[in-house]
């Protein structure tokens, strides 16, 4: 953990947006902690991504797909009734749930599938929690006619039935993972085992801004379109930048995508919302790696983890399958330690209440993941002045969660 003097030293940096370093570190976080079999692949990937990033043709192709396939830019919508109800900050929704496939996940998948094709890979694997990333991967694989296998925890397969059906329809092979608690971390273990076995032809399309370098930086870059659009859209709507940003954090890809273009705008207050589950005081009852965990090394990077005193990883809990991951992207861990972003936790109950409020006031059913971010907005907005421009990233739509929500609210479907 960063000491106070470290914090002061790092806060004196000219920019918060230049990381990672050439070994993939954000401060002490990140890096490349993988088995030797994978090291040459990860170094290859880093080179291929650097080349692609600087190739105008790659960017042109991605822009074209974003416009015509994903449906970007996503709107920045003024949530008038929610604003009136909470009586404080002026609330805007960044409507990532309107993207093709229903979440921000498509942004990253389009970028990585283009990269995989450039690298001559012929088989795609991925992990998924809520199934949003799995659906996005299956979608781009269908579009490009590439075989894909998705690893998904058996518990998640059960609680995310609609997304399971979508992936199958899209032609993906779904591999339910029964090891551990059968959730996202176990799915990621199995995907890594597949990759290490099929290194010659397989591309691992990681869905969040975590894993070994270069994934955290690459996924962030592909998601930064969210924040870049918000800058332009807010300038157009209000003639200035927003004052407050809020996003939910599992691995943290939608959040880093929104935050990153604003890190050097010191007047913009930034909040990341973790899954508080049953509450941070309930042992193994939450998935808040940063607000309720400690630094460690898992899945290729050093970052905050949910773990016991012996370094064994805990499963965590959240009502939202997309947030119950025991780690978090390393850039978030760094931003927490240097104090640039405030990280807080919202419980299952608060998220459920926020989901209902948003649905009733705005006619938008958010996914359980961004409902955590909405949960913070409900607490935060009333305390802020009316001219405070607040943007919350509505990272996914709630259709996939209807069964879970109905069950918790005692409704019959």
């Amino acid at each position, binding site marked *: 953990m960063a000491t106070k003097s470290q914090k002061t030293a790092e806060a004196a940096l000219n920019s918060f947006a230049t990381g990672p370093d050439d*070994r993939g570190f954000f401060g002490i976080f990140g*890096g*490349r*902690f*993988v*088995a*030797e*079999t*994978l*090291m*040459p*692949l990860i170094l290859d990937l880093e080179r291929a991504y650097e080349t692609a990033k600087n190739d105008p043709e790659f960017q042109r192709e991605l822009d074209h797909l974003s416009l015509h396939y994903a449906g970007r830019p996503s709107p920045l919508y003024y949530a008038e009734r929610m604003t009136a109800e909470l009586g404080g900050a002026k609330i805007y929704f960044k409507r990532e749930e309107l993207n093709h496939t229903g979440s921000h996940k498509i942004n990253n998948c389009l970028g990585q599938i283009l990269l995989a094709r450039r690298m001559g890979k012929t088989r795609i694997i991925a992990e998924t929690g809520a199934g949003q990333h799995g659906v996005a991967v299956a979608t781009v694989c269908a579009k490009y006619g590439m075989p894909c296998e998705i690893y998904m925890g058996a518990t998640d397969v059960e609680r995310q039935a609609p997304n399971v059906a979508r992936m199958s329809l899209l032609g993906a092979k779904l591999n339910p993972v029964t*090891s*551990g608690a059968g959730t996202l*971390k176990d799915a990621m*273990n199995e995907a*890594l*085992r597949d990759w*290490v*076995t*099929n*290194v*010659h032809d397989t591309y691992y399309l990681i869905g969040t801004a975590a894993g070994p370098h270069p994934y955290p930086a690459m996924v962030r870059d592909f998601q930064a379109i969210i924040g870049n659009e918000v800058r332009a859209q807010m300038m157009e709507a209000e003639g200035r930048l927003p004052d407050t940003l809020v996003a939910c954090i599992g691995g943290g890809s939608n959040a880093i995508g929104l935050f990153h273009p604003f890190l050097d705008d010191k007047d913009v207050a930034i909040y990341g919302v973790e899954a508080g589950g049953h509450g941070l005081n309930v042992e193994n009852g939450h998935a808040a790696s940063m607000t309720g965990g*400690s*630094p*460690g*090394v*898992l*899945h*290729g990077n*050093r970052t905050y*983890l949910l*773990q016991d*005193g*012996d*370094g*064994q*990883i805990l499963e965590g809990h959240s009502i939202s399958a997309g947030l119950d991951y025991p780690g978090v992207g390393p850039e978030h861990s760094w931003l927490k330690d240097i104090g640039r972003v405030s990280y807080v936790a919202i419980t299952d109950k608060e998220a459920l209440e926020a989901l209902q409020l948003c649905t009733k006031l705005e006619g938008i059913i958010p996914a359980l993941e961004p409902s955590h971010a909405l949960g913070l907005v409900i607490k935060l907005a009333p305390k802020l002045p009316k001219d405070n421009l607040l943007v919350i990233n509505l990272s996914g739509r709630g259709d996939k969660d209807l069964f879970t929500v109905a069950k918790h609210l005692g409704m019959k479907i």
Partner: protein
Amino acid sequence: MTKHETRIDARFAALRKDKRPALITFVTAGDPDFETSKALLDDLVEAGADIIELGMPFSDPMADGPAIQASSQRALKAGQNMHKTLQIVRDFRARDQATPIVLMGYYNPIYVYGNERFIKDAKAAGVDGLIVVDVPPEADDELCLPALKAGLNFIRLATPTTDKERLPAVLKNTSGFVYYVSITGITGTAAPVVADVHNQVKRIKSSTPLPVVVGFGVRSGEQARAISKGADGVVVGSAIVSTIEKSLGLKGEPTSDTRKRVTELVRELSSALSAD
């Protein structure tokens, strides 16, 4: 890189004299429980193991197949942790001064224990070497260099994907021996192709004076013998922990068969390697 000779160096020197490849056996510390695990180490030596690889159990063993995953889970369920793992080594070392022990596992339990403290306590307990699967040469300053400085061997894995450009980086700070991973994959799954393994071992041996041993997917005496030609030793892990698993009672408790069957398997492996 270490100048002074370790137990591992001494053991390989003795084996070279005998013109015999090393039999390196892997078990997970605390599997199926603390007491049985302690006794199993003696059984391994008694049955002919030359070096013991002792797994530090981890909740998320990403490079391991089902057999070693299950073994790690059994150990953790029985209450194993890093302190107890070092205790097993300390107790063994009081009884056996010669057989090298290599701790093998993943970085996180070490990192959480504290790298410096871990190296100091491991050395004091009588550990001779470390294999940490997810700390590549790119991160040598974190654990490898301090371990070497403390007089521990740091054993690196080379794999079929370690090409000739990368091999020097892998070998640079390796000591004790080089562990060649015979397949691209996880432990205990596919069987290695013997001819490929021989070529790769030859390639690695031409770049280092260190002994080169082969592991991942070696299950029987016959296979061990074929694989060991041209190499300095073979590692058997999944086959042993599977044998432990199969010997357990209905509630996962050790039975009178547990130690017996492990002993039989290791004896078979040992005699296959000695028969020349």
